């Protein structure tokens, strides 16, 4: 078991390094005019000078090496160049992380709480009215771009709740009413996914022989749904739940900026536009880490839930 964990962990670690390197190299490809306030007025020497000051004139791979060296040796992510010039990135991010985590966690919970019962009901009443209703809801949420229905949710939702369109003050941040719409917006996408997958797996599972045996045994359909089919349908989904946490965090990019929530998602848009390299890297590092921990956690959860999978080999890949 220990050796599996070590191997699995190493894999994740290598993937993380590759992703970070790719992002680092991509970020260095940005147009240089974005690094200067008044690019047009500068002469060549001034530009070179500026790039040298920022350490951007060195070969990309040297910069990359330095980045990893500082990260590993000092846990140093560098300082912000422009967002809050000179302030260590970690210091800027620290107060924002809990907000994004809270938003992500709440959304994940809500999407599970809504999506699982929805999928269950759809599977149980397959082909009947409730199934069609669920499908209609799913189609709307899936097909209409989130970027569009978020707008309407924001506009009509805030009016209905009698609150301002965005969070303006520190006090709003602590008012649960202001959290309802962002959390709801972010959970809808995952909700439909859970519902679709659970319905699909439950329909598949209920064709299986063990369900027939349960029926032969004399178990009622409700009992079969809950005690036999649900768990078998849920186990393959468990693997993806930690990963979908990342999806909700990604959703926060849009939602946070829409509602002016001072989290990481909104910040990413900001720092990308301002070419604050170190900030971009740090946020991507965080996102990628969350994603990879999610995958790792998913695999472990799977081992925990499914007696057929032993820790010596990786579970079914899908």
């Amino acid at each position: 078991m220990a050796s599996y964990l070590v191997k699995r962990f190493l894999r994740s670690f290598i993937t993380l390094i590759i992703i970070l390197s790719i992002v680092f190299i991509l970020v260095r490809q940005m147009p240089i005019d974005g690094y200067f306030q008044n690019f047009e007025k500068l002469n060549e020497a001034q530009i070179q000078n500026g790039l040298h000051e920022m350490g951007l004139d060195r070969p990309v791979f040297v910069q990359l090496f330095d980045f990893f060296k500082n990260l590993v040796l000092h846990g140093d992510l560098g300082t912000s160049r422009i967002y809050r010039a000179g302030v260590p990135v970690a210091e800027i991010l620290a107060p924002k992380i809990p907000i994004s985590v809270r938003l992500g966690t709440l959304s994940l919970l809500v999407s599970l709480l809504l999506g699982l019962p929805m999928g269950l009901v759809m599977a149980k009443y397959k082909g009947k009215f409730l199934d069609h209703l669920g499908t209609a809801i799913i189609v709307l949420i899936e097909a209409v771009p989130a970027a569009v229905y978020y707008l309407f949710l924001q506009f009509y939702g805030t009016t209905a709740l009698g609150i301002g369109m965005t969070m303006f003050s520190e006090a709003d941040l602590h008012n649960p009413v202001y959290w309802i719409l962002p959390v709801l917006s972010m959970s809808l996408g995952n909700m439909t996914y859970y519902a679709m997958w659970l319905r699909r797996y439950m329909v598949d599972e209920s064709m299986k022989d063990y369900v027939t045996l349960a029926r032969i045994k004399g178990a009622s359909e409700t009992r079969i749904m809950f005690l036999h089919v649900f768990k078998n349908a849920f186990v393959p989904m468990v693997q993806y739940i930690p990963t979908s946490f990342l999806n909700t965090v990604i959703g926060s990019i849009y939602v946070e900026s829409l509602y002016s929530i001072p989290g990481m998602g909104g910040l990413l848009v900001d720092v990308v536009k301002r070419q604050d390299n170190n900030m971009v890297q740090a946020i991507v590092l965080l996102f990628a880490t969350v994603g990879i921990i999610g995958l790792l956690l998913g695999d472990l959860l799977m081992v925990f839930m499914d007696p057929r999978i032993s820790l010596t080999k990786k579970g079914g890949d899908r």
Partner: protein
Amino acid sequence: MSVLKHPKIDKLEQSVSSEIKQQFSQEELFSIAPFDEAETERTGAGSYSYWRSTLRAFRRNKIAMFLLIMLVVIVLFTFIQPHLPGQFDPNAASFEVTATGQSKPLKNSPPDSVHWMGTNAIGQDLWARLWAGTRNSLFIGVMVALIEALVGIVMGVLWGYVRKLDFLFTEIYNVLDNIPTTIVLILISFIMRPAMSTLIFAMSVTGWIGMARFVRNQVLIIRDRDYNVASRCLGTSTWRIIVKNLLPYLVSVIMLRMALSIPGAIGSEVFITYIGLGLPADIPSLGKLITEGRKLLASPSKRYQLIYPTVILSIVTVSFYMIGNAFSDAADPKNHL
């Protein structure tokens, strides 16, 4: 992030895979074809044609047929519209002559007989912009879907056939599967100059891997058969097998993936435009219309500027999505009994 792929795609891929596997094993001389009533019925009903059954099942879905026709009409209209009489240039501002005799842009003019959907904040004709935007957004969507399919197939075939590349591709798969798509989209859109090609590239750079993996798995089935000398001697030629037993199924998976990628790409364009990294100023798109309209959401008299593009966008994306869903049910060989 393709970790949680769409259940419809997953389902169709699984059925298609098992169907292909079954077809390949059936032609093996020594295999005992499993007997079931459906199979006897199938042979009893004459030759079974996958595409005929698929089309028949699809045609039976009235809603999907209706949406398909509507979609075709919309697409055709986006091309016809500029050639109709009395149309405006989507990028040119209209002017009005004020009481003082000066000419100034006709800003936010409500719909009338000249500007059928009114004008926007800088006097551009919204009717023309709506159709130009729909055309551009659809173009982006279709291109992304086509590139994903094309690159996916080529890479998938390489991945499956060239054993030496397997390791490389598996690594690429792991990485691409772990990078959040949205972040790639944001980074690339920013690094490259704003252009239609930039957006298309940014959106399709991660999406092909899912298709490639599916193609690879199917190619492996043929490859293993190819190495199996006995079946090569006894069976039909590999090309015939590919054309007859693999291609039709592959095409249906591609079509489903495309039907679902197009609304996805159209949605991504809206998102990327919202954060300010979209198309250059002279190319209208649905995302642009929605972002512009959003600013007017609070004033009820101008809200139509958001509503019209939203309605068209929703019709287009919902149609693609529902046609895709209906098609995946129709194309599932398991439903052909």
